[in-house]
């Protein structure tokens, strides 16, 4: 360390800060990539057992090396560029899909004071980043110069923009309870055991948030953007090899992100449900794991929504519910029962 400091001279504080930040970023992104890889395996296994199949079981014990095999296979596949595609934007699409999915993790706290950037407006930052993710889909769909891809992109853009509003309103309820946009403070506002977590006073908002999250990530039963039986695979139909894999990674990273947010904002984050067991990062992992299991469970259970039903659910059901509940919370906060909503 000493000789490094001498080498950089007066620039050392900046270099040291950059170095540490880079190390922290790797410490977040590397496990995240692992989680994404094994979420794909978990999905195939869980859905397999729900359909009375075994799922992948050939590569490694219980198919544990299957994600690695898939990754290597995709890595060696050719990335086909369609002749009539817009080359620059075609390659920019996957990048724009995955960059926000990872950038949002900068403000996610994992434990008390265990966060890369303790931003005061952290929740707004995450909302901004997730709203940018739609560009990857739109650009990919347009640059592919293919009807199916374009239809998929249009569907996806409309869906993401609609459900973002319901999601944002659901978060307004959390802000009203927590009095802060800082994710760490929102979690600490729920301390005191299971009964103090926000999912109880904000139950309708929690349900709306989670369903909107499923729609935002284009997962079944809201996966009309890919709709393999109608528009073959939607926006990424022209992508192959790693370019396709990047879209895949982005979708699963987004799933983990929205589950993480739901766990932090409604289920008390790393706080333990009972006060005599200490709070720990493991609680957060368990909650996120449970919410991710719900994603897989939904996919194995529900048939796909029709497009007009999706739009109706978002605009005519979820947005009114959230607005009514926000007004209700605001009213309750002026009454003696205000303590129930803090």
């Amino acid at each position, binding site marked *: 360390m000493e000789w490094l400091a001498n080498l950089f001279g*007066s*620039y050392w*504080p*900046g270099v040291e800060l950059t170095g540490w930040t880079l190390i922290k970023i790797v410490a977040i992104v590397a496990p995240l990539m692992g989680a994404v890889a094994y979420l794909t395996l978990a999905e195939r296994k869980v859905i397999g057992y729900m359909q009375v199949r075994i799922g992948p079981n050939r590569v490694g014990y219980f198919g544990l090396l299957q994600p690695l095999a898939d990754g290597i296979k995709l890595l060696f596949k050719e990335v086909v560029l369609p002749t009539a595609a817009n080359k620059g*934007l075609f390659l920019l699409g996957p990048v724009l899909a995955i960059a926000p999915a990872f950038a949002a993790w900068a403000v996610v706290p994992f434990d008390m004071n265990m966060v890369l950037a303790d*931003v*005061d*407006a952290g929740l*707004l*930052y995450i*909302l*901004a980043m997730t*709203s*940018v993710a*739609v*560009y990857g889909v*739109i*650009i990919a769909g*347009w640059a592919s110069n293919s009807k199916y891809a*374009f239809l998929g992109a*249009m569907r996806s*853009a*409309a869906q*993401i*923009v609609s459900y*973002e509003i319901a999601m944002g309103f659901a978060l307004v309820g959390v802000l009203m309870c927590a009095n802060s*946009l800082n994710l760490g403070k929102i979690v600490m506002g729920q301390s005191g055991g299971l009964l103090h977590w926000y999912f109880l006073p904000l139950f309708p908002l929690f349900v709306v948030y989670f369903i909107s999250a499923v729609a935002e990530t284009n997962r079944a039963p809201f996966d009309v953007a890919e709709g393999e039986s109608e528009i073959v695979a939607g926006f990424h139909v022209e992508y192959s090899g790693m370019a396709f894999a990047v879209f895949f990674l982005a979708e699963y990273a987004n799933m983990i992100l929205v589950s993480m947010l739901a766990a932090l904002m409604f289920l008390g984050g790393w706080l333990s449900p009972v006060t005599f067991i200490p709070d720990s990062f493991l609680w957060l992992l368990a909650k996120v794991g449970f919410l991710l299991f719900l994603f897989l469970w939904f996919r194995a259970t529900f048939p796909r929504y029709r497009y*007009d*039903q999706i739009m*109706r659910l978002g605009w005519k059901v979820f947005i009114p519910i959230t607005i009514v509940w926000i007004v209700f919370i605001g009213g309750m906060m002026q009454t003696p029962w205000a303590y129930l909503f803090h």
Partner: protein
Amino acid sequence: MTFFGLHFQDIVFYTLAAILLFAGLRVITTRNPVYAALYLVLAFFTAAGIWLLLEAEFLAIVLVLVYVGAVMVLFLFVVMMLDINLDRLREGFWSALPVALPVGGLMSVEMMMIVGVRNFGVDKVAAPAAHPAGYSNTAELGRVLYTDYLLPFELASVVLLVAIVAAIALTLRDRKDSKSMDPAKQVLAKKADRIRIVKMQPEVEKTTTSDSAEEAK
């Protein structure tokens, strides 16, 4: 910490400003409307970066959230679906130029007189003082909006609400041949409304039974 006599913040500012100017220029010079919309997205993003340098993190993030995340998505949506013929758009360029040039020039001169160096120079507007680490821009903005500026804020929201209602009222047309269904009616539909169960006698194979009866005799 300085690099070649420039502070780190200055370097960030000049980089962002250069990208912003380039993107803004490309918005009006590029031939493809989709590219123009994407350059506008880049311009918004870099503008948000410059606001972050001013410690206005709430405004910066909201700029990205609203303009990049919602408004520009709808823009792109429309631009991608339209079949825009650029030659048709450029047809009247030379005939409109004698009028457009003085009008445009006058507007730029007026703008420069108001927001130029004379009124907004470095000597006129001091740099904002750096805030302590715990300072929350968001909370401060919220307090000011809902106390000192409550009335203008509410007025603005009412104007926006009227605009929303007007826009919907103007564009909402009920098509006579629309086949849209009322979901409430769909949910209320009972099995009895759709299916009629008819009681029927089971078909008994009489011949075989009589045959076996005769055989038994």
